[in-house]
């Protein structure tokens, strides 16, 4: 890809969302038009959802709910902030939010990388199923609730009840954690974790931060099978 690739510009102030998404869906793996720019999103919901091609999509402004929902293969960059559920259920590709992200960022994501350059609100990475999420700021309460797999990296702090009812996802937090949720515990950072974290930071474009500054959290696996003596935790 180089400068010769034509940039397709789509202005949401002039044309409807439905046409934009339909046009993005028409692009296949071998699409010629791989560079896209979306102007005037003005908080629209469902911008660039269900994309299934290796496109580069720049969104020039802030978006509403579910931007880049169910993304496959595309790299989508939001030059602004994102509303709830950015990159929800992402399968692959990369989504970057230059500003802040609201609730449920990366919810149920199954693959790919979500980078939030600002802060993310509550329930970041809720029910994540394989996605990697890197938040350069802090995250809100109940993040990684019922997180199944994938990794959540936070360079700032985490709010209350981090990783409540977590399964096998890995959480790396550099700052403080207000409190841990049920069945979530601090775990040892072994060599493999330093290696994985370094790779994630690199992929997210973070430099000058040592992996030794992070603590790792994950499942104590005590709630995996029901036991009445754990009733207080349910």
């Amino acid at each position, binding site marked *: 890809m180089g400068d010769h690739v034509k940039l397709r510009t789509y202005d949401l102030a002039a044309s409807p*969302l*439905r046409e934009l*998404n*339909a046009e993005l*869906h028409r692009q296949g793996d071998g699409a010629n038009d791989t560079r896209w720019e979306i102007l005037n999103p003005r908080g629209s*919901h*469902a911008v660039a*959802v*269900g994309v*299934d091609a290796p496109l580069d999509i720049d969104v020039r402004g802030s978006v*509403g*709910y*579910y931007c880049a*929902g*169910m993304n*496959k293969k595309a790299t989508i960059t939001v030059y602004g902030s994102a509303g*709830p*559920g950015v990159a*929800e*259920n992402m*399968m692959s590709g990369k989504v970057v939010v230059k500003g802040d992200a609201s*609730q*449920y960022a990366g*919810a*149920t994501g*199954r693959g790919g990388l979500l980078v939030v350059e600002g802060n993310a609100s509550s*329930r970041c990475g*809720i*029910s994540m*199923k*394989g996605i990697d999420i890197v938040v350069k700021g802090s995250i809100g309460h109940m993040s990684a*609730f*019922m997180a*199944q*797999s994938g990794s959540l990296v936070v360079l700032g702090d985490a709010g209350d009840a981090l990783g409540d*009812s977590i*399964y*096998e996802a890995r959480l790396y937090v550099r700052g403080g954690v207000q409190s841990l949720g049920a069945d979530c515990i601090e775990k040892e950072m072994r060599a493999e974790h330093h290696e994985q974290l370094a790779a994630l930071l690199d992929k997210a474009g973070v430099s000058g931060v040592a992996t030794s500054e992070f603590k790792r959290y994950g499942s104590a696996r005590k709630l*995996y*099978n*029901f036991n*009445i*003596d754990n009733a207080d935790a349910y």
Partner: protein
Amino acid sequence: MTYHNPPTTPRKSWAFDDYTMSEIRRAAATGIYDIRGGGAKRRVPHFDDLLFLGASVSRYPLEGYREKCSTSVTLGTRFAKKPIELKIPITIAGMSFGALSAQAKEALGRGASLAGTSTTTGDGGMTPEERGQSKTLVYQYLPSRYGMNPDDLRKADAIEVVIGQGAKPGGGGMLLGQKISDRVAEMRNLPKGIDQRSACRHPDWTGPDDLEIKILELREITDWEKPIYVKIGATRPYYDVTLAVKAGADVVVIDGMQGGTAATQEVFIEHVGIPTLACIRPAVQALQDLGMHRKVQLIVSGGIRTGADAAKALALGADAVSIGIAALVALGDNDPRFEAEYNKLGTTSGCYDDWHEGRDPAGISTQDPELAARLDPVLAGRRLANYLKVMTLEIQTVARAAGHNNIHNLEPEDLCALTIEAAAMARVPLAGTNWIPGMQAGL
């Protein structure tokens, strides 16, 4: 002469009956609440409490087998570019691969396709067997999002956003470790053998305003092609249907407390939610008040067993009904031919409801390869198709008797009630009277 005091007959407590006492002993011994499958087992007002009036001097019937009585239904006419056309107004409700074996899911698809209707995925994603054998497949969009992906979303013929189900409105799914096989674990992205608890509410939206945006997203992802259903457990039907329509649903599915589940707490099944009979009129009223009756289609489920039940639901204003437990029974669930094996499990055929344990002798609610192999998907699918056809003939029989050449012309005026409760819930007169409790008497 001596008199002996005559003894009184030993008398069991109504409040502390045998079942209640056994449950107290079981709870005390195990320290865990009772989990089971199925729907409410207690008697609640139901379709049996209604009767059809049939033709009389004032109206004439249609000739059975001779005069046409159409049964087809179109779902999703409000917004979807590709509405679903079904030959019969009975669909197969959502049941998961995980709760059911792959063979059972395939059989449901085969039976539904033979009969000209749709089947529905469940809380475990879409299997190739099921997609391959289902001409029309509804893909559930659930709080857990197990197996959810945009490819399957596009392969589906409709999308059902599940808010709740009649067996447990307000509750999430449950699949105990015995049923988390390698394949189930992989599809759900979970460790094998754990007790899996599905979330009770969606991870990325709360409330009706968010639901509207979620539906928008699903439509945008699928280019506005697929009908979008919203499924709710029956609790506050008037308001829930109103909000589902406001949020943009093409179809509303409402599931009463007799509707089944693969596994949940007994206390949930028997004590949360309202009977199917009680939810239809308020749901229809909501659609009528919005001017959307017959524009947003209504599917009713929960304890529907016969063509008579289905016809009564249609007469009360539903566009279609959905069956779950009845479909499983048609496949072979609780068949007396497995009586000896049910006895070994401490139960008897007709009562087996420990579907969560995965030891189903009929090979339906199991992930055990040996048990699952007992169910032949082709034969079981044929049985389901037969049953659906019988139900359809029964609906036509009743509709013709009431003088209708289309089953959707059945109306409340065709019905009366046997009990005051049923009359009040269904808003039809008590048999032989013109009295509808709660309404001013008419002519």
